[in-house]
């Protein structure tokens, strides 16, 4: 899996610091960031909003057939996380296997390598989640 450098670069705020967006008209938070509010449409006023990375597991699954670039990581856990600031996002749960997890478990953000295309390509970094202990 290869990602273009310009896309990687644009996604840095979202990936490194979980910068999403917030509609100040209806106080909805969005992650990944949205540029238009799903409720207020054109009337919504959108601005950047930083998520804490804290939340709880809404649903999770273990990946055994990984996309290219992730083969060395299987099996790994992907989850839908209900963020404390009120929206859901998908992310990997690190340092854990299925038996360590249950729905509702508290998680926190962690900074990890997402992908390094090839030995001479750039390294992509970003947030993942880990169990809060």
């Amino acid at each position, binding site marked *: 899996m290869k990602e273009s450098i310009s896309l990687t670069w644009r996604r840095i705020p979202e990936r490194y610091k979980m910068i999403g967006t917030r509609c100040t008209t209806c106080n909805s938070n969005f992650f990944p960031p949205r540029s238009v509010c799903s409720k207020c449409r054109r009337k919504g006023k959108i601005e950047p909003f930083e998520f804490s990375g804290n939340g709880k597991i809404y649903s999770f699954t273990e990946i055994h057939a990984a996309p290219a670039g992730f083969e060395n990581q299987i099996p790994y856990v992907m989850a839908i996380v209900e963020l404390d600031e009120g929206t859901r996002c998908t992310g990997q749960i*690190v340092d854990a296997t299925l038996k360590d997890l249950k729905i509702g478990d508290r998680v926190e953000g962690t*900074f990890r390598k997402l992908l390094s295309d090839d030995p001479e390509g750039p390294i992509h970094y970003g947030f993942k989640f880990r169990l809060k202990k």
Partner: protein
Amino acid sequence: MAGIVGYGAYVPKYRIKSETIAEVWGEDPNRIQKGLGIMEKSVPAIDEDSATLSVESARIAMERAQIAPDELGAVYVGSESHPYAVKPTATMVSQALGATPNLTAADLEFACKAGTAAMQICMGMVDSNMIKYGLAIGADTAQGRPGDALEYSAAAGAAAYIIGKDDQSLAIIEDTFSYTTDTPDFWRRTKADYPSHGGRFTGEPAYFKHVQGAFNGLMEKMDEKIDNYDYFIFHQPNAKFPKAVAKKLGVPKEKIELGMIVPIIGNTYSGNTPLSLANVLDKAKPGEKIFVTSFGSGAGSDAFSIKVTDKIEEKRKKGYPLSHFIENKEYVTYAIYAKLRKKYKGM
């Protein structure tokens, strides 16, 4: 005068026992454990590197410092395992903390003492009013050649220090002194996967000479004595050297115990002395004094005299103590360890 405004430390979850490594290479595990004094070492997950370890430790340090990210005027990351040969780890770390763009940043390398060198640079910049706060990190995911003695010790971890003015500090850095020469005790050439070392040469002319040089230099410069300090930290390439140098210098055994973490996490290279200091700061009381001496092959030592202030108790309530990461562990087999460290051909 400059001091430590915030600090944080991080060690990955995975461990491998010395006996597991010894079994693969036909060594006697008792001989290794007695000789090096290392029971187990930390192993980074497959998606961890020196940049990610740096960010984990720095986020805790920022929480304790209670400063805005854009107040950081400098970020220096010391490591001998920077993820890129060219592209500073400090850029990824600065961005992940939200400290960009108005700051200076660079990577440092000085074997196991690049982290303490980063602290000295930040001290100078704070004292000269060039910056308000500077971030100094020592981080490594060290690699030992399979079967080499270093494989039992080369580990992963990071510690971060935010340096600022003494009146906001949880510990004041009273003074520092360094001792540096050209000594070929340990090196890694460009493009080499693993370091090489001078065997017995790593002891007397390298570790002991430089650690004693910096230690005695700072004691003399400050006109201080051992009795005035509560804790001593010496760089720990293994558990034997720091105990031996303490004995030579007349430092009581019990004063080095709290800082001795190499038996349970291994040698985290640039993270080594900074992590030991974090472990002492996690427990130290206001008014106590800590004498720190790092060592980096090549070779050099940095010594610091540190005095804990009454701000420490409030600040260290935030974020995880180092023990949180040391205790949260999972053992791996040698085969998994070899995968995590990409020791298989073609990976």
